[in-house]
């Protein structure tokens, strides 16, 4: 997608302003202010419990932030319900895979299409040409998506019967079916072996290119993070402790302290 090269650096697709989440007395995320250039792949890293998934939940409408704002293409979206955020063009995956287990692979992806559908189920009662056409078109589109993630052969299988790696790819295909412009991946490489992680990196780059996406991902596998992210944000105990290109983050003493503890940073 040419946009990555041609758009100016200040073309920001999503921006968070002092995003803060408090659970009772616990400050989960404090003043998270970040901006994401269109077409970029950004990583959100930090030790367990740093507030990464909480950030995802605030951006995607699962949590209403205690304070702060999220601007998506200049439009404030913080506090919108999750389905409206998705409709606006932001999709996500989950750390613990959440598929529709009793449904087939194809049906899982079709569910992602429903919010772009124009005909109602009432029309399918009498087989109107419009609803039949739309249904055929959406099925074809979903099969293409499955093809893109390498699951086309398994379209008729039950989602729960897929192996782990395939389930992760199905979750991504399902998210892509909603036609997002911004995609959040929560630990996409979790539970993958080195070869699978390698493949994943190529896959993430490929879908960015093919679907014109901006991607934000949470990941613990540093090889993946350093390999595909162009920019990193580092959280620790809810605070943003660093941000910058991967090479700079790698040697940032504050980040090393957060990950490894005090002694190692000074050693």
């Amino acid at each position, binding site marked *: 997608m040419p946009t990555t090269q041609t758009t100016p650096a200040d073309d920001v697709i999503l921006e968070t302003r002092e995003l803060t989440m408090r659970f009772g007395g616990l400050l989960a995320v404090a003043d998270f202010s970040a901006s994401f250039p269109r077409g970029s792949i950004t990583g959100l890293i930090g030790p367990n419990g740093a507030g990464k*998934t909480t950030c995802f*939940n605030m951006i995607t409408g*699962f*949590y209403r932030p205690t304070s702060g704002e999220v601007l998506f293409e200049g439009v404030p979206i913080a506090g919108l319900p999750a389905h409206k955020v998705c409709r606006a063009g932001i999709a996500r995956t*989950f750390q613990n895979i959440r598929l529709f287990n009793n449904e087939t692979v194809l049906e899982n992806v079709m569910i992602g299409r429903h919010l772009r559908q124009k005909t109602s189920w009432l029309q399918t009662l009498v087989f109107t040409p419009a609803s039949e056409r739309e249904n055929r078109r959406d099925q074809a589109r979903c099969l293409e998506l499955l093809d893109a993630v390498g699951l086309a052969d398994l379209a008729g299988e039950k989602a729960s019967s897929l192996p782990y790696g395939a389930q992760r790819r199905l979750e991504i295909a399902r998210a892509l079916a909603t036609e997002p412009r911004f995609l959040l991946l929560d630990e996409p490489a979790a539970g993958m072996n080195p070869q699978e992680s390698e493949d994943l990196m190529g896959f993430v780059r490929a879908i960015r290119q093919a679907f014109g996406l901006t991607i934000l991902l949470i990941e613990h596998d540093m090889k993946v993070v350093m390999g595909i992210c162009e920019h990193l944000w580092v959280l620790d105990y809810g605070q943003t402790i660093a941000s910058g290109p991967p090479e700079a983050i790698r040697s940032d003493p504050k980040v090393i302290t957060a990950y490894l503890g005090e002694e190692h940073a000074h050693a």
Partner: protein
Amino acid sequence: MNLATFIQNILNSLTLGSLYALVAIGYTMVYGILRLINFAHSEIFMLGAYFVFWGITLVHLPWPVAMVLAILVTASLGVLVDQVAYRPLRDAPRISALISSIGVSFFLQNVAIVFFQAIPREVYRPAWLEDPILVHGVRVLPLTLFVPLLSLVLMLLLVYIVYRTKTGLGMRAISKDIETSYLMGVPVNRVIAVTFGIGSALAAASGIMWALRYPQLQPIMGTIPGFKAFIAAVFGGIGSIQGAVIGGLTLGFIEIMTVAFFPDLAGYRDAFAFVLLILVLMVKPTGLLGERPEDKV
């Protein structure tokens, strides 16, 4: 309404309220621990009353002995129901145990119909509970003093068990987190059994006193009080024993006082509780004192 009637109404409310509260405690304890609405609880209430009737008419036991025995038998029955119908479903989807409890409820109710017939039966009432006494010129039914007092004693006993014994500590631990309780060596299954036993004993006591107050026995007598007591538990905040007591008393007062002040609404008295339930669930589903963890994303 004159003062005497008003006092009688207060006593009636307290009586009805304590009866609801005793049953509500059983609902709230089981829900607190297993997240299960135990539909069969209302049949436990009914059977407690029938067991006293049996003890007196068939075995000719003295009334107090029959009462204590009936409470013990009913408590064992409550434990048995859990072991047979709910325990195998601990790992199943939550609604399975609920459906099982609906099945047990219908089962017990119809077993009662088979054995006792559907016709209402008279209840033996000791004379000292029935003959009105004069307190400062107000005619008072001793029963309306006896029921709240006995209920109070039972509740204090319960508070002692829950807050001063090891089993009680186990109950509180399980209601916070059943998985961790297993890991910490809490004898979970035994504590759950004790919980069912206590809850059923209180329901039996309530059922027995209910039969004294509204002197009739019939197999469906538990259904409506059971629902109302559950609603009381929700109103007070499910999982909270204090909440169940407050909820029960509140419901008793609402019911008696509404009928006392607006006799036209008497026909709707069974609907009050359900309207209250729906209102509570809409406005504050956690009830007065309850807390419920949010779904994790």
